[in-house]
């Protein structure tokens, strides 16, 4: 990762900006969303390997800063939603694409289906990701 950051630094102009935009595992909430209200049903379980990846990415950025390659200017977190029409569609999507990132316990799927079935007709199901966006500036020396 540090090698990649050094390569990014190479292709950036002096004073150029690196924007590090990525989801951060944090037991993402699973919710039923309708115009009237949003209700959290439970939280996803973070899997160990991607958690370690998050930590490794943070360490790589810190090392880059210590080397004086890039200076951190700004960091924020914000919510980012994926929506599905039904719990079944959500489950199929997550099983297909995120089965190596998070796990949803069977009990949570049951509670989500029950709550969604009794919610307003326009109700959707969603997962709320925690996103991090950090801005780094290339230090002006070589």
């Amino acid at each position, binding site marked *: 990762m540090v090698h990649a950051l050094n390569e990014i630094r190479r292709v950036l102009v002096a004073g150029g900006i690196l*924007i590090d935009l990525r989801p951060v595992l944090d037991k993402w909430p699973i919710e039923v969303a309708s115009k009237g209200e949003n209700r959290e049903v439970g939280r996803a379980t973070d899997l160990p390997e991607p958690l370690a990846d998050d930590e490794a990415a943070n360490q790589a950025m810190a090392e880059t800063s210590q080397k004086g390659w890039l200076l951190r200017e700004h960091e924020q977190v914000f919510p980012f939603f994926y929506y599905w029409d039904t719990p079944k*569609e959500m489950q199929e999507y997550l099983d297909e694409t995120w089965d190596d990132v998070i796990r949803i316990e069977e009990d949570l799927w049951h509670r989500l289906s029950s709550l969604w079935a009794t919610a307003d007709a326009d109700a959707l199901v969603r997962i709320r990701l925690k996103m991090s966006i950090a801005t780094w500036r290339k230090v002006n020396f070589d």
Partner: protein
Amino acid sequence: MSVQIDPERTEIKYLRRSADFTGRRVLEIGCGDGRLTWRYAKSAKRVTGIDLLGDDLRVATIDRPSDLEQKVRFARADSIHMPFAKESFDIAILAWSF
């Protein structure tokens, strides 16, 4: 299976707060199918998206709006050995990468 990803467009709001893309040469690392690219590319001078996944890059190329054909290019490359000259970009985006 239908999924709506960030219909609130929160991501682009935060991205635009982080940098002014107007007239800038942008490198997007991990561009995937271009979902994020289309949201800021119009204001940039030039956008180069790279990814390791050829299937996603094919989707991005097919989906590229006609008014962005001259401005947005995609390449299959990794972030450790990028086929670009030194100091080619004003902004680099690590997009859901690492």
